[in-house]
């Protein structure tokens, strides 16, 4: 009896050490993946510099006369600097631009992207933690955004205009976004739990269905005829989330970011400190063991995908509340970016914050790069995939690590690798 207890205690200590180590290892892998993705991205920038034509080369291959139109280092500096609103004077005397202020348009744009990415990242993270590859955040975002826009447009005349009415409408809009997104997320959950339909395929199909149905609904029923694109009527000004310190043109509302931080804390608490969170985590790592231990796996699948969808829906609601003030057919691919954010974060809610900020900076910077050079902002789309590819192969980094440390360095523990891989 006591021996069993002692054994259990020892195993638990060992496990704690493993988990800690795998968390550190994961962070390291994420950073290394980012680094390698940026290197591959640099090669792509170089190659694309051979495809386009320019009169003077920006970069010469060392020791040769092969010129390239774009210098990758320059592009990345521009990207980083641009994401912050260009505080540094690149290539000029004096390092920092005295006229720069934190509250600039471009940094606001970066933070707006960060805010939206926090929610799509959390949406992906909770499902991945449950062992479910929810690729459907994009569709849940589209449906959530549509629900928010429509309900707010039609509820606006019913509440008094002004601050109070605005607050009521915003809360209503967020709730509607969460409900619409959540219900849409429940569909693949039910299909997975009760019909054994692979969630990767169903969620991707539901993305297409969401985009098409929303488009048809708006273009044939809810369209604002005065708009040149397919879009709903706009929600009133007082019901949009305002920019407090940043310029309004950046579409960034500090309230949204604060909500995002609270959402991170909430999801972290849910996952780590509630019994439902325990069910999710164990089903993600060891589904059979979880079921054996009394976890109702069907219920867990449906619930975690519903919550995941709710976060996607809130992201859609915030997209409407901060940026567009209406649903329009050109919905940005924030749901797919969320996959990268979550994977970079090791599917950990806390990690979503730095990952979202990082990816937000990439997106903000890319716009600046596209503005100043001919490098298309689609570059971010390439980096998005590359980062996932590198994070997907921890073995690659372990091999590099082993080679660097020498063969007798820390031999990777089988337990660590198993645990690490199963989570993803």
């Amino acid at each position, binding site marked *: 009896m006591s021996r069993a207890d002692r054994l259990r205690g020892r195993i638990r200590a060992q496990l704690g050490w493993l988990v800690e180590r795998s968390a550190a290892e994961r962070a390291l892998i994420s950073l290394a993946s980012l680094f390698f993705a940026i290197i591959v991205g640099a090669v792509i920038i170089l190659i694309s510099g051979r495809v386009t034509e320019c009169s003077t080369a920006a970069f010469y291959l060392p020791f040769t006369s092969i010129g390239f139109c774009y210098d990758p280092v320059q592009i990345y500096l521009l990207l980083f600097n641009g994401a912050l609103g260009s505080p540094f004077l690149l290539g000029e005397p004096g390092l920092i631009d005295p006229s720069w202020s934190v509250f600039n348009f471009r940094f606001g744009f970066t933070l707006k992207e960060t805010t939206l990415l926090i929610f799509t990242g959390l949406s992906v993270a909770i499902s991945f933690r449950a062992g479910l590859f929810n690729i459907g955040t994009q569709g849940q975002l589209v449906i959530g955004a549509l629900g928010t826009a429509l309900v707010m447009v039609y509820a606006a005349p019913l509440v008094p205009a002004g601050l109070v009415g605005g607050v009521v409408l915003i809360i209503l809009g967020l709730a509607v976004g969460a409900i619409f997104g959540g219900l849409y997320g429940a569909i693949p959950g039910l299909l997975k739990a009760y019909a054994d339909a692979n969630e990767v395929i169903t969620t991707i199909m539901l993305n297409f269905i969401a985009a098409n149905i929303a488009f048809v609904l708006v273009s044939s029923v809810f369209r604002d005829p005065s708009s040149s694109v397919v879009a709903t009527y706009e929600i009133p000004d007082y019901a949009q989330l305002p920019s407090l310190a940043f310029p309004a043109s950046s579409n960034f509302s500090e309230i949204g970011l604060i909500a995002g931080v609270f959402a991170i804390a909430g999801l972290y608490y849910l996952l780590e400190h509630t019994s439902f969170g325990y069910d999710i985590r164990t089903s993600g790592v060891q589904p059979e063991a979880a079921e054996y231990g009394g976890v109702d796996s069907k219920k867990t699948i449906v619930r975690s995908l519903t919550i995941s969808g709710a976060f996607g829906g809130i992201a859609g609601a915030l997209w409407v509340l901060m940026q567009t003030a209406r649903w329009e057919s050109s919905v940005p691919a924030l749901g797919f970016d969320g996959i990268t954010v979550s994977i970079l974060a090791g599917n950990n809610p806390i990690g979503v914050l730095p990952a979202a900020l990082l990816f937000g900076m990439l997106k903000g910077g890319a716009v600046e790069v596209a503005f100043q050079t001919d490098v298309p902002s689609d570059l971010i789309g390439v980096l998005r*995939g590359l980062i*996932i*590819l590198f994070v*997907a192969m921890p073995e*690659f980094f372990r091999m590099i690590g082993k080679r660097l440390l020498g063969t007798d360095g820390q031999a990777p523990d089988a337990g660590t690798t198993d645990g690490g891989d199963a989570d993803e």
Partner: protein
Amino acid sequence: MEVMPMSEDDETLGRATADRSLRSRLTNASYIKRVLAGLAGILALLGVLGLLFPTSVAGDLSRIVFRWSVLVQALRISTPIALAAIGGIFAEKSGVINIGLEGLLIISAFAAVYLTAVLGPDTTIAFIPAIWIGFAGGVLASVVLAWVFAVVCIEFKADQIIAGLAVWLIALGLAPFASTLYFGSRDSGSLGVTIGNWPIVIMIASVAIAWVVLYRTSFGRYIRAAGENPRALDTAGVNVSRIRYAGVLLSGVFAGMGGASLSLTIGLFGGTGETMVEGRGFIAIVAYLFGNYNPLGAFGASLLFGGLEAIQIRLQQLGYAIPDTLVQTIPYIVVILVLAFVGRTRIPKAAGEHYETEE
């Protein structure tokens, strides 16, 4: 996994595969028969309804379904799906789930148009029209990306689902990126030439070849064994990794032909939104699940999806005022229904798992 006695490896392997193939042939037969009977029933019902009520929707529908031009149209639409599905069969049968088919389609669709445009759409090089060199270039691009996927999955033991998603997202970013660089926009604009109906011929030939290779050659037996029982294959002295590489690279070849067919049939690349591929790679996955990993079955399922689309186009021409975006949604809904109610096929036992060679 059971350990086999070392002495009778070959015999055991042989018996095991014979057993399994007999069993699977039986289940296959009943499954495919059921599906075929269902389809024949629907067609017969439609035909009877059409004859009885020639002026109704059923009459129009039956006239559409039994029309040669609609069949050609259906074949044309199903070509990229069927080719990608055949590729997916080779990868998954060998034990690597290739969810990145969509990415292979995207990259080959772009590369084919790009190479054709670079060479000049009207030129011929060594008597080969540029468009066919472009076609080959598209296949090559897809094979290169498939090779990266294979290295990541087999060499570095990546999670196949995540790596497959990465392949898709890389292509989804790279093709519009390159298109913007070269053509100045995400859409290439028309090349002015098309490849005609040749892809249909290529697709039908591919279906036949794939079936023969999978079920009538020793290479096909290795492919199936690598996905079902890699240990037995290993003990029989065949390198499992090499077979899996072959499976994934073949998926690159077939999906590459599919992507190149897709873009060169219309003579342009469309890169806005989800690109012109629009989920065909994922539909292909469902097509081969629906077809129970049999190239013939996958072809049938692809033709079903192509047929739905062709009927839809014809209905539009007849003046039925259904919003076309809504009708275009039907294949996606069908995919989900198939997955939920029909597609409970048995996936290869070792698919998705890494295989460590035993010393």
